[in-house]
């Protein structure tokens, strides 16, 4: 991601350290991950030491230090989904994609993550793929849902 784009994002916010997380969220959203060069640029412009940035991007789950796949699968593992069978659903999706939560496949097709409640508990168990919500998921439905995402 070139410095111009990064600077444009940084300039949207007050240029002090408190903007750090909001800036990084936007870069993450546009670029789908946070390369080291982007972090160095942010460190310079917001005057925040690199060790603090490194802590923040590993502390908060919204950030990724490796490229994400084209399609992000989020399996809800909130309590309501848990009692409705989310662990079995997660197992099935893990088997189908060959991924564990936090991983991305080699072709950069899918990234798998668990998420702690998206607020759709009546639909549990829920998975969200590319912002599209799929409710009342059964392990048997997973293959059909995922094959729509190339």
């Amino acid at each position, binding site marked *: 991601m070139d410095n111009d784009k990064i600077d444009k994002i940084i300039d949207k916010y007050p240029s002090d350290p408190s903007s750090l997380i909001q800036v990084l969220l936007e870069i993450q959203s546009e670029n789908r991950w946070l390369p080291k060069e982007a972090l160095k640029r942010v460190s310079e412009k917001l005057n925040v*030491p*690199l*060790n*603090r940035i*490194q*802590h923040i991007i*590993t*502390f908060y789950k919204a950030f990724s230090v490796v490229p994400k796949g084209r399609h992000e699968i989020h399996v809800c593992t909130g309590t309501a989904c848990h009692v409705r069978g989310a662990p079995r659903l997660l197992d099935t999706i893990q088997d189908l994609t060959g991924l564990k939560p936090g991983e991305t496949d080699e072709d950069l097709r899918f990234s798998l993550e668990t998420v702690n409640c998206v607020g759709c508990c009546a639909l549990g168990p829920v998975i969200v793929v590319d912002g599209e919500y799929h409710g009342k998921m059964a392990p048997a439905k997973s293959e059909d849902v995922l094959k729509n995402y190339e």
Partner: protein
Amino acid sequence: MSEILLQIDGREVKADEGMTVLEAARSAGIHIPTLCHHDKLAPYGACRICVVEVNARGRKTLAAACVYPVEPNLAVRTRSEKVDKTRKMILELLLAHAPDAPALQELALEYGADKHRFEKESSFCVLCGLCVRYCTEVKKKNAIGFFDRGARREIHFIPEIAAKECWNCKECFPLCPTSYLQAAYHLTEALAFPRPSSKPASGE
């Protein structure tokens, strides 16, 4: 700054507004054990070894002496059944990581902590944060930092900065209660920024 009167272990102690219970206790010659505390650094309140019983406004709780601000009529107990039991457990939890750390042995003896109560953990860092805080607050180099959170929290050197700054500094080394820091440094050095051959090959 106004003067505040509080009670520590039944003794009346005079303190200044803005002092912590730890500072007040020390000024009165009362000992409270610490691990993550350092006079050159801002109080951190992470290890919780310094917990004491405080009675404020009728409520009795445990509080970390190093960060709890003095208040008028505060009643503090630096030792009690609850305090001792808690310190023992904290030590045992830390000993699971660093059973042979010199800084923990004396305390373990005093509080009857059993280094085998919990299975040995893989990392011998106790996350006191002395190294990170020293580098940030005193040296202002930010060569080492925390990563991740929860049970996965760790310290790491930032290789680019460490390669430039650490060789001639290493002031954080003596602060580490477990020597994990030294091990982490040497590993980072070996993997991320090998020493050029002009530098001495063995220790400092």
